[in-house]
């Protein structure tokens, strides 16, 4: 069994890629920073909007800031030793692999389903050795027990698999944060299972 110092030192030596810095990405980054991940690579082209504050890890005074810049300020306020690589770029199928060549685990944190499909197809065909963690189905409220992690080989899907965003099913803090926390939790199980004999389920 690992003690807490060993856990911290393992995490410090690993890099996690996060595609998107919205509801999922900003909160996954926050959780991984708190547990002492060594390096994060985060890519997002967007700007913090008032409407993001219902779920994303940003503050009122950051509205109008580039998300990657606001996130940098917030994460370094938690851990100034975090090595943080950020890119203010709109990801698509032609550029997505180039930013995450050396990550140990990849986290999908897009909102649009089309982008989720692109990242899965690119990574699972061209970088199948990198574990990929996806958020899928977290709109609305309640039904906490429906949130789950399903493993498909090297692909891990977090969420309820049914709740798509709609006018009457908004993405709001509690369930989006549950999903983001599940993604971060899967990352930990992947990184720590690599080095311990006690295998924890993702």
């Amino acid at each position, binding site marked *: 069994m690992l003690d807490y110092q060993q856990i911290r030192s393992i995490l410090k030596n690993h890099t996690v890629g996060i595609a998107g810095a919205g509801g999922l990405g900003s909160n996954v980054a926050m959780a991984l920073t708190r547990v002492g991940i060594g390096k994060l690579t985060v890519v997002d082209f967007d700007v913090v909007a008032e409407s993001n504050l219902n779920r994303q890890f940003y503050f009122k005074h950051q509205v109008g800031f580039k998300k990657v810049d606001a996130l940098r300020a917030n994460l370094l306020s938690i851990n100034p030793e975090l090595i943080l690589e950020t890119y203010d770029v709109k990801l698509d199928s032609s550029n997505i692999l180039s930013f995450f060549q050396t990550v140990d685990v990849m986290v999908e944190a897009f909102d649009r389903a089309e982008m989720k499909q692109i990242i899965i197809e690119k990574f699972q065909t061209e970088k199948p050795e990198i574990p990929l963690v996806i958020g899928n*189905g977290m709109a609305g409220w309640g039904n906490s027990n429906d949130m789950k992690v399903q493993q498909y080989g090297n692909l891990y899907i977090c969420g309820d698999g049914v709740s798509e965003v709609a006018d009457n099913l908004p993405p709001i803090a509690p369930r*989006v944060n549950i999903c983001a926390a599940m993604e971060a939790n899967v990352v930990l199980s992947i990184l720590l299972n690599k080095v311990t004999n006690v295998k924890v389920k993702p």
Partner: protein
Amino acid sequence: MEIILNNNPDFVETTEKAITVEELLKIKKFSYKLLIVKVNDILVTKENYSKVSVCAGDNVQVIHLMTGG
């Protein structure tokens, strides 16, 4: 034909020894626009649905993707 579908044993109504992914999706009524399909842990992209076949015992995973994040 017995396969593993989404990590559970499943029966596919067919007399063929092998069917394509496209046929499987039709039989199992997966009609969503955005799907991820893996056969024996290998990703099958949409343009290959009619080329890749599924046989008894295969491990097939079909995931419906939805917007939100």
